[in-house]
């Protein structure tokens, strides 16, 4: 075998500001042309490991290093020197996009290395074609979708012909279908250029859509597993460190099938199941599904009613929502799903009163909301933004949550009582005297939920409540929302995450191109590949598994899976 292109030897790193090392005793060799997935929960040190490869550590972010690291056969000397060997695509495509147009952004590294303009233009076009970004070279970043931005980011890195391609959480900001295409693109590029690929990601199943050579599992700064996907996906380590195993493996396990590395379970495409196994799955699906009862609460008067809603943004004049009608009943937990740009966030903003509809009506408890101000809407419908840092405006938790009451002139005694109650509901009581800055991201998210709850709304709308969260934090947040729902609050989630929808929502409103194209129980939406295609969503791997097991109607398998969840 050839020399390793990356080699860590007894490597440890400790950030200057921290008491303990973030990476401990890392021993890892990567060979040219390998495709490696580095996975681990938040705080496991996986991003730190990536930063060691591109030189941000230790050159831009000082700390103490022990042991050795060689990249491309030499010890790293500077960020610039490493940038000739390692091309990095960062997680945040908005932050990475520094040009005023796609073309400029792709050319950025060439500009900085004083490449002549004519050569630059030719090479930009060539790389843009490779990733399929040549159709929007003159577009500004504001005009691009998340997927397009990522293609531009990839092109901007590929243009410098580095032998290693490093992707830091490339899927975090993408909807699942776009994510799937991104994984395909990386695979294609790697096959064509022969470069070494390192993907840092916690969404295991999504990355494994294409073949990876090895998976490295990280937990608390140590490598806890290093092996081929077929071994890793069935190892108990995965669940121990709080990562989610692929859905089809969970389903097989629940159906009583033992999955071993011999089944080639690394990817659904390679999975081998015996007739015996498929029989077990079929039986499980039938039996569990029989116990199913649709307990959706579609009775009584609707709490919220949208009637032929139509909306176009005044700046662009483009129709964002067309003829949307639906009813939401008290106590429901529903999801608005659709890919980016389908109109789901727009709908949430209309319900929250941020924008005014062009035609149609939205009724709350039968009353028309047309003339309500934003604050009036907020007393009935709470809205929680995706990024808590954009909502929090006070340094202390108590003041932050009290804000909504204080500006309404609620007496201070009542403020205290209501804030305490909201904190209690959100499990934040012990933090009552804390500053916001001491909280984790997930805790901040709870604070923003408390911000909304303190006004005693009947409906809570959450925009992508679990975006960018690893499985453990994701489960925490979602369990909390289920708990709120049990207390009688109607919950409406906006998401492109089909897993979220699958496990927690009882009903899904599917949007595509500004239209409501389906309003059904979630298991039906998830098992309908045709609908998924129309909505530009990605069907879950349960559908594929159902087909493999000869289950004609995937619905029953999905139902069985959800039934087994609780």
């Amino acid at each position, binding site marked *: 075998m050839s020399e390793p292109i990356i080699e860590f030897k007894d490597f440890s790193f400790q950030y200057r500001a921290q008491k303990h090392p973030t990476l401990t005793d890392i021993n890892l060799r990567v060979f040219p042309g390998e495709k490696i997935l580095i996975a681990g929960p938040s705080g496991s040190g996986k991003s730190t490991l990536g930063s060691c490869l591109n030189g941000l550590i230790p050159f831009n972010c000082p700390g103490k290093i022990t042991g050795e690291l060689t990249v491309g056969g030499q010890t790293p000397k500077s960020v610039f020197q490493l940038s000739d060997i390692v091309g990095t695509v960062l997680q945040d495509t908005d932050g990475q996009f520094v040009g005023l147009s796609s073309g400029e952004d792709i050319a950025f590294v060439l500009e*900085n290395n004083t490449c002549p303009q004519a050569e630059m233009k030719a090479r930009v076009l060539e790389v843009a074609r490779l990733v399929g970004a040549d159709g929007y070279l003159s577009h500004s970043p504001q005009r691009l979708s998340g997927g397009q931005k990522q293609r531009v980011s990839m092109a901007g890195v590929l243009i410098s012909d580095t032998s290693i391609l490093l992707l830091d959480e490339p899927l975090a900001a993408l909807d699942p279908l776009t994510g799937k295409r991104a994984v395909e693109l990386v695979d294609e590029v790697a096959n064509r250029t022969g470069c070494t690929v390192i993907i840092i990601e916690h969404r295991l199943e999504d990355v494994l859509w294409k073949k990876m050579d090895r998976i490295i599992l990280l937990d608390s700064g140590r490598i806890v597993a290093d092996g081929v996907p077929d071994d890793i996906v069935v190892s108990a380590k995965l669940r121990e460190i709080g990562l989610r195993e692929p859905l089809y493996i969970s389903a097989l396990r629940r159906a009583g099938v033992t999955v071993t590395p011999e089944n080639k379970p690394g990817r659904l495409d390679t999975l081998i199941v015996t007739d015996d196994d498929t029989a077990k799955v079929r039986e499980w699906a039938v039996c569990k599904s029989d116990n199913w009862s649709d307990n959706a609460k579609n009775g009584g008067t609707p709490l919220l009613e949208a009637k032929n809603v139509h909306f176009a943004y005044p700046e662009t004049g483009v129709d964002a929502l067309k003829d949307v009608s639906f009813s939401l009943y008290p106590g429901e937990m529903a999801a608005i799903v659709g890919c980016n740009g389908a109109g789901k966030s727009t709908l949430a903003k209309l319900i929250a009163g941020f924008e005014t509809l062009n035609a149609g009506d939205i009724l709350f408890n039968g009353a028309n909301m047309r003339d309500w101000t934003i604050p009036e809407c907020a007393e009935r419908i709470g809205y929680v933004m995706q990024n808590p840092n954009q909502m929090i405006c006070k340094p202390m938790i108590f003041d932050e949550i009290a804000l909504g009451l204080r500006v309404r002139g609620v007496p201070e005694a009542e403020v205290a009582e209501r804030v305490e109650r909201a904190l209690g509901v959100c499990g934040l009581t012990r933090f009552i005297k804390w500053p916001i800055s001491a909280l984790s991201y997930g805790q901040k998210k709870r604070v923003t939920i408390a911000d909304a709850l303190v006004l005693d709304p009947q409906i809570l709308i959450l925009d992508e409540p679990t975006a960018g969260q690893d499985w453990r934090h994701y489960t925490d947040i979602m369990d909390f929302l289920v708990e709120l729902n049990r207390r009688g609050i109607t919950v409406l989630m906006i998401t492109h995450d089909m897993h979220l929808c699958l496990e927690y929502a009882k009903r899904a409103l599917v949007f595509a191109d500004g239209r409501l194209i389906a309003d059904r129980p979630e298991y039906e939406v998830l098992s309908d590949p045709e609908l998924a295609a129309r909505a530009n969503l990605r069907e879950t791997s349960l559908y594929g598994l159902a087909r493999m097991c000869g289950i004609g109607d995937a619905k029953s398998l999905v139902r069985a899976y959800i039934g087994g969840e609780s």
Partner: protein
Amino acid sequence: MTAFGYIPRDSVLHRLTGASKLIMTVALSIAAMITFDTRFLVFVIIISLVMFGLSKIRFSELKVLLALITLFLIINNVAIYLFAPEQGTLIYNTRNELFHIAGRYSVTAEQLFYQLNVSLKYFAIVPVALIFFLTTEPGEFASSLNALKVHYKIAFAVSLSLRYIPDVQRAYREISQAQQARGVDISRKASLRRRLAGILAILFPLVFSSIDKIEQISNAMELRSFGRMKKRTWYAARSFSKRDFVFVGISVLFVLLSVLTLVVNGGRFYNPF
């Protein structure tokens, strides 16, 4: 939204480099700053209006902008008159009273002429600044500055702020909506105190979430070699053509002419009285 103010058209002025348009803007600003010669200012305005015509941008596209400029000029004129109704008399050393209003306020020909000159001076820069602003592709902006010997890091800072203005604007809008939902009021209906408190509730998350991005963006730039070399090339740069040299020549001429008026008039003011 389109990037900043750029309106794409196919015109002579669009084909000029941003650098030469910037030189023209600065040159005219200097020329108009130096002199109060009415004839020269009118000449400048006529030439710049002609250029504006050549840019194929219609005044109807700029209604709001023009209304604002007019309002600005009106308020400024009223303010000057209220504070110094005899400023013209002081400057031109004669006093031709047209009519008396009340107290110390009367209207003199000198005052009218002086205020006309002040307005012309402000207005003289407007068309050419608009040309620069509306016909230069934002991407070319930075390379133009760099071509004018501004250090590339500073030139890029300008480009980068143009890049993030729409993002900051969107963040502002979203944060403002979310805070309004919590009950903060920044509308004119609210008292000044409440409005200020409301604005702070928007400003803090806006500033801090923007600052959060700085490190990410600078890392992304360094990972792609920004700052590695002593200079850099520009994807969006345009090379100087004959047209540009002519345009820059005209700019220089304007400055020289304006200096000439100083000599001819024996001072900054042209005095018809």
